[in-house]
Every structure is written in structure tokens, then in C-alpha cells.
């Protein structure tokens, strides 16, 4: 593999505590620039941990993650990626405008430039006019769109998303999935997306990494060969269901004999 891989995970293992649970075992993955990759698996499969290893928020016990050929630590210091969490994680005391411009403030952008960029992004996530609002005045779905705008402010080549729509109702989630694809196509960034929704993973991704739990391992990488741009019709496509079924069966295999199948909606 050349250094051109957007994300390269090399033999990553992670054990929490001494002799504790093995969250990740010998993970090897490469994501290409512009790919949309989902990590899916039962809870405890370490998908969120893997995402944090990529973002240098968790240090692997073994192996390393590279972003664009750079060690993850350097990539974090260079602000090469934007992060979106399950909770919008907005600062309650900042207006929407100020929340979105937070990373730019930290990077020392001039006020004028910040304002222009924020306006651009709020337009992209269709929240123009909400600049002066506070986060608690917005619905959960709108808050998450603000978080996405914030992750995009400094135009990172990689976006890490940790179950960003997991706490939203299904209708909002469906709509935001479409919006996310539109934004992704507009930015050409690489997206690594953690989810436990099979339909969401298949609908969004170019590839789905199916993981198994205890220890967290890659079960299989499923190519999603549905054409982009995907629309609401994609969700009714026969092939879409075939792929979803394939992912579901892989998940079932991965923890046969265990309860708690991941939600299939």
C-alpha cells in the first residue's frame, strides 16, 4: 500500500487495563481517499475504539494508524480530520455561529474569514438563519447538523463519525443520511462512520466493515456496489436488501450463541 491511503490501520490491537478486555485484535484496514466506510458490529466490538485510534484519541496497545501516510498523532496535531459524536457536543454557552467557528478560532482565523466560512457551512447543512440561536433552541437533528458543519469548517480530508445519528428518531435519521451523502459528495472527503444500524451502513457506504466482538476483529469487508448518488429509491432496491441481508448474516455469524443482535432498522 502506498502512502496515498486516506486511512491505514496497521495491525492495531488495544487492550484496556493490564490483562483487561481485548477491545481490538490485529486490525488491518486501508481506506481510499474519498471512500465512505462504515464500521458495524455488536456493542463491545471496539468500533468506537477503532475510530478513536484513527483520531489519536485512544492509543493502541500495538500497531499504528496512519492518516494520509502520517502517524495519527501528527495528523491530529495538523488537524487533518473532523470528528462528529453521537451527541452533538455543542457548547451550550455559544451561539450556533460560534459553535461552528470554534475550530477556526482555535486555528487563529480572522473574524471576517470565520464569519464567511460559517455562513457557507450553515448554508451547506441548511441552517441559514440560525446563526444567533443557542444549541438548546434547536432540535436534535438540527444540532447534529451543526456538529457536522463544525467538523467541516477547516475542510479536513477525513471525517470521523461515531454513531452521529444513533440518538435520533428514524425519520430524522433517514433524512440526515441523505443530507450527509449530499455533503460528502460536495466535499469529497473520506468518511469513517460508526453505526449499529445495518440499513444505515449499507445505504451510506461504499464499503462496510463488519466487526465481531470480544475480541474486536474484522469479520469481513462488504463492498456496497450500489451506484451514487443514492436516493430514497435506493432503499427500495432489491440489491440494497440483498446487501443488507448479507451484512445481517455476517453479524449473526459473528456472534452466534450471543444475544443482543444489533438493531436491523
Amino acid at each position, binding site marked *: 500500500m502506498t502512502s496515498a491511503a486516506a486511512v491505514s490501520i496497521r495491525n492495531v490491537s488495544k487492550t484496556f487495563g493490564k490483562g483487561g478486555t481485548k477491545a481490538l485484535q490485529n486490525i488491518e484496514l486501508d481506506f481510499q481517499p474519498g471512500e465512505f466506510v462504515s464500521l458495524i458490529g455488536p456493542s463491545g466490538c471496539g468500533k468506537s475504539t477503532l475510530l478513536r485510534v484513527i483520531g489519536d*484519541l485512544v492509543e493502541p496497545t500495538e500497531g499504528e494508524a496512519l492518516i494520509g501516510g502520517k502517524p495519527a498523532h501528527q495528523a491530529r496535531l495538523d488537524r487533518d480530520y473532523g*470528528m462528529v459524536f453521537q451527541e452533538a*457536543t455543542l457548547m451550550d*454557552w455559544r451561539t450556533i455561529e460560534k459553535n461552528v467557528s470554534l475550530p477556526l478560532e482555535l486555528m487563529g482565523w480572522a473574524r471576517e474569514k470565520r464569519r464567511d466560512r460559517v455562513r457557507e457551512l450553515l448554508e451547506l447543512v441548511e441552517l441559514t438563519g440560525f446563526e444567533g440561536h*443557542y444549541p*438548546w433552541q434547536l432540535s436534535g437533528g438540527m444540532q447534529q447538523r451543526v456538529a457536522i458543519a463544525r467538523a467541516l469548517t477547516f475542510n479536513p480530508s477525513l471525517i*470521523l463519525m461515531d454513531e452521529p445519528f444513533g440518538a435520533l428518531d428514524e425519520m430524522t435519521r433517514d433524512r440526515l443520511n441523505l443530507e450527509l451523502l449530499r455533503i460528502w459528495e460536495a466535499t469529497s472527503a473520506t468518511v469513517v462512520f460508526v453505526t449499529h444500524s445495518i440499513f444505515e451502513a449499507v445505504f451510506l457506504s461504499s464499503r462496510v466493515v463488519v466487526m465481531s466482538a470480544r475480541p474486536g476483529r474484522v469479520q469481513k469487508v462488504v463492498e456496497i456496489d450500489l451506484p451514487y448518488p443514492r436516493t430514497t429509491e435506493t432503499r427500495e432496491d432489491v440489491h440494497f436488501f440483498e446487501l443488507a441481508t448479507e451484512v445481517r448474516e455476517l453479524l449473526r455469524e459473528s456472534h452466534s450463541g450471543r444475544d443482543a443482535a444489533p438493531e436491523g432498522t
Partner: protein
Amino acid sequence: MTRLRHATTEWLPALAILVLGLVGWELAVKAFGIQKFLLPKPSEILTAFWDQRDILWPAGWYTFTEAFWGFVIGVSFGIGAAVVLARFRALGSALMPYFIAASAIPIIAFAPIANAWFGIEKSSKIFIAALLCFFPVLVNTLRGLTSVKPQQVELMRSYAARDFTVFKRVRIPTSLPYVFASLKVASVLAMIGAIVGEYFGGSQQQLGIQIKNSAALFQFETAWAAILVACILGVGFYLAVSLAEILTMRRYPSAERARR
């Protein structure tokens, strides 16, 4: 105009209660022939309040400055210690139980000791007031600084923010409601500390001594008038802190407050 009318209708019931209460008090004392040492009439108290104003207000101001400096010192040390303990979490968690226990100690019991240490003038009262303010401010501020959501810290780290930046941009704003809650408590405690500290010995210019001596000399209306001075200054102090809170929180509105 409507805002003024709104304010008036909001305050009117409270004001009516005050007037009715005072009238009821006056009439009750008259009707039941209550002795002055038990409860003087409001009119007598107000007369003493006016007649003795040249003694009571300077005494009140003297005591207020004790409370104020005690507040400033206690709060500074409380916030300072909280910042240090928030930085060194292990130390903070090790000491926290003791601080919580310490904030339950009747610190006022140390007042006679403080007199022995610092003399009967201002400094012993400032010490007691500061000590009373210290623990609640420390405990609350530490709780505020450490109640930041882990994801907010992760988010800041994903922007390669240093600890100091996280502190300034996330920890301090998150802690503000906690800090102000404790500052309001501290403002009350500081007044209590100063006055009760004075009961254990002080000079004539102190309000606590005025209250104590007037009561000892059976000048109960003067004692009550002095207490009224203490109340006015105490409430004023509390309101000043609340005003500072409102002005600060206007810049840092938080969700909990907005939902109220």
C-alpha cells in the same frame, strides 16, 4: 411601559405582604402587650434605626468590610485550590472527602480561637469569614470544573487543543453556574461569619458588638435596628453577587438556565 406594568404587578403582592406583615406585627405587639425584650414594635425599631443611624451605619459598614474581605480571600483561595485540584485529579479525588467533611464543620466554633490568633480587631473576623467561604466555593468550583462531558474534551483534543485551551474554553464556562451558586452562599456566610465572629469579642465600632451590647443593656429596639442594618447589607451583598452572576451568565447562557 408594559414592562414596567408587568414588573409592578409582579412585585405588588410581595410588597403588600411586607406592609401587611409590618402592620400585623405592630398591632399584635400592642394587642397582646408583648414585652419589648421579646419583640419591639416595628415603629420603635424604625425610630431607633433612624435615631442611631450615625452609630449603626458606620458599624455596619465596618462589619461589611470584614465580610467583604473575608469573602474575597476565601473565594480566591477556594477557586485557586479548585483549579489546582482540577489539574491534578488524583489529588483532588483523594482530598475531596475531607473537603466535603470540612464544609460540614461548624467553622464558627473557631471564632474564639481566631481571636487568640489574630486579635479582636478586623483580621480575626476576616479569617472566620474567609474560612466559611473557602470550603463551599472549593467544593462547588471543583465539581463544576470536572463536570465537563468527556466528549467535549475529546472534541477539543481532536482540534489539537492544549490543556490550557480546554480549560479556558470548556471547563471555565461549564463551571460558572456552580461557581456562582457557591458565591451566593459565600456572600451570606461571610456576613454571618463576620457578625458572629464579633459576638466573641471586638471593638465598639463593630455591628455584632452593637447588637450584643444593646441587647445586654435592654435596648432591644437598638439591637433590632442593628440587625436590620445587617440584613440590609447582607441582602445587598447577595444581590450584588446575583447581579454579577446575571451579567456573566448573559455572556455564557447555559441550557439549564434557559429551560427554567
